[in-house]
């Protein structure tokens, strides 16, 4: 019970902190819009409204990943700078219960980008959103957000060793957009790429969102997305022990 409370309270408080940084919000919304706009122009040349809708839904998730990739990869580093890493490690709470909500708060902020991208597509490109399964859409979105958060959590734990972790997270922005099929159908990729795509939760999240809007069977996709997300969480939690022990041995929990 305490574990659940820690995660919930942590999530709310970190969301509070993230919302209080105005720039985080604005740039986080505008950046993916550049790419969405480019994609919309490209898709528009097909003169096919369903193609544009396909692009709009895919592009809307781009911002969720952007909001997560760089910030999550450097999350632990940033706590070290703030001096909050040591006080947190010194508590009896399991470190993953602290890190997980941070990553999920980050991906949750991405919802502004998602809404903005859909609105942008509507206003400037006349892309009307269809909703074949509205309830499943409302399920698919949070599941995608949480799973992307879990991926961010796993990322934060695996790259913590590197001082320049943010650069690694930054470099992962485009690859996920590409490989998870946000704007490109997976069938266009060489065969060996597909297992990689399938192992990534965002692939299923985007599929779920698209199928909920355009028609299909999103439930399986939602389940796959959730399962993968859970998997990332578990692996991350297991790694945390090793990471922290190493940090305590090498005295890297603080800057001094």
């Amino acid at each position, binding site marked *: 019970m305490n574990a659940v409370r820690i995660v919930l309270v942590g999530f709310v408080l970190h969301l509070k902190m993230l919302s209080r940084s105005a720039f985080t919000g604005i740039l986080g919304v505008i950046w993916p819009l550049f790419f969405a706009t480019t994609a919309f122009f490209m898709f528009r040349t097909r003169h096919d409204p369903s193609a544009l809708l396909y692009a709009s839904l895919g592009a809307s998730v781009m911002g969720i990943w952007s909001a997560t990739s760089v910030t999550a990869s450097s999350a632990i580093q940033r706590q070290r700078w703030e001096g909050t890493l040591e006080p947190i490690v010194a508590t009896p*709470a399991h470190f993953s219960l602290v890190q997980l909500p941070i990553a999920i708060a980050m991906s949750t902020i991405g919802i502004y980008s998602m809404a903005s991208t859909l609105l942008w597509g509507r206003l400037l490109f006349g892309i009307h959103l269809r909703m074949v399964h509205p309830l499943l859409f409302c399920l698919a979105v949070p599941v995608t957000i949480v799973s992307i958060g879990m991926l961010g959590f796993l990322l934060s734990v695996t790259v913590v060793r590197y001082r320049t972790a943010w650069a690694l997270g930054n470099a992962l922005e485009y690859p996920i957009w590409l490989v998870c099929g946000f704007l490109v159908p997976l069938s266009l990729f060489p065969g060996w790429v597909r297992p990689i795509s399938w192992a990534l939760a965002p692939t299923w999240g985007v599929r779920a969102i698209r199928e909920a809007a355009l028609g299909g069977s999103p439930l399986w996709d939602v389940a796959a997305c959730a399962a993968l997300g859970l998997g990332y969480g578990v692996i991350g939690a297991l790694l945390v022990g090793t990471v922290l022990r190493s940090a305590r041995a090498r005295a890297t929990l603080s800057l001094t």
Partner: protein
Amino acid sequence: MGVIEARDLRRTYKTTTGALRRRTVDVEAVRGVSFEVGEGELFGLLGPNGAGKTTTIKMLITLLIPTAGEARVLGFDVVKDAREVRKRIGYVFGGDRGVYERLSALDNLRYFAELYAVPAREQKRRIAELLDLVGLAGREKERVEGYSRGMRQRLHVARGLLHDPPVLFLDEPTIGLDPVGARELRATIASLTAIGKTVLLTTHYMFEADALCDRIAVIAEGKIVAEGTPRDLKAGVARGKVVEIEVYGTADEAVERLRVVEGVRSVSVEERDQAQVLVVQVDGEREVTHALLGRLDGSSVGRVSSREPTLEDAYVALVTAE
């Protein structure tokens, strides 16, 4: 069995030197520290900056793994049973960082209350009590980024006490505080042992250790050089006196020359305004002033005075001894 037990704790850091050809150098910050703290004691770890106080305390609060040796808090090993230790200790570190700036003090405390598993129904009451205790009541809803240094320090104290731990570790808690704030904090610390908590305090303020602590261990260059009650340590220097000689510009060589004079126990240099003062501790019965001044022939010498030794002198002697 003591509440806090340290047995031959050692900690080595690897640092890299040089920009082009990086060499890894091993720095031994703590070189075999052992001590025990009993229940309800206020134990002081006293030493100059860089002596290894913070490293020692971090090993005890499970943030650092000792390179060698072992330590236990309330019977739990700090490495193997880290979680059990963390449940039972609180720690307060000085400094501006370590709290979430964009949150209010209240939110900070709420969060850590969860992390320390303070039961939900007790949290509100406990937080209110602590805010009152540290004097932050009424300002708890403001964001920490607007807090002064002293207020942040007090927030650290409140956080350390959230789960009512039986053992408390304080690392230089009054550093950077104004005199009034520091005094209030010391009073708070003293009251903690009055209610049965065990406190380990590190400081480099002599008078603070003297005033607060039941027992003191003096640490210098990673080793404990003396241990005992403040009275014991003072007794160590009660015999003898201190001669202070003002010199101008020749302090370093003077130190060497004076060290070898018979009866001199230690020589150290203090900067005071324009001059440097040689603080010479001498054995009690001897009249050495003449001999000392003789050795300083050729240097510019100002005022000369002699006085009774204080605990400060004992401390200086201990930490500067080769």
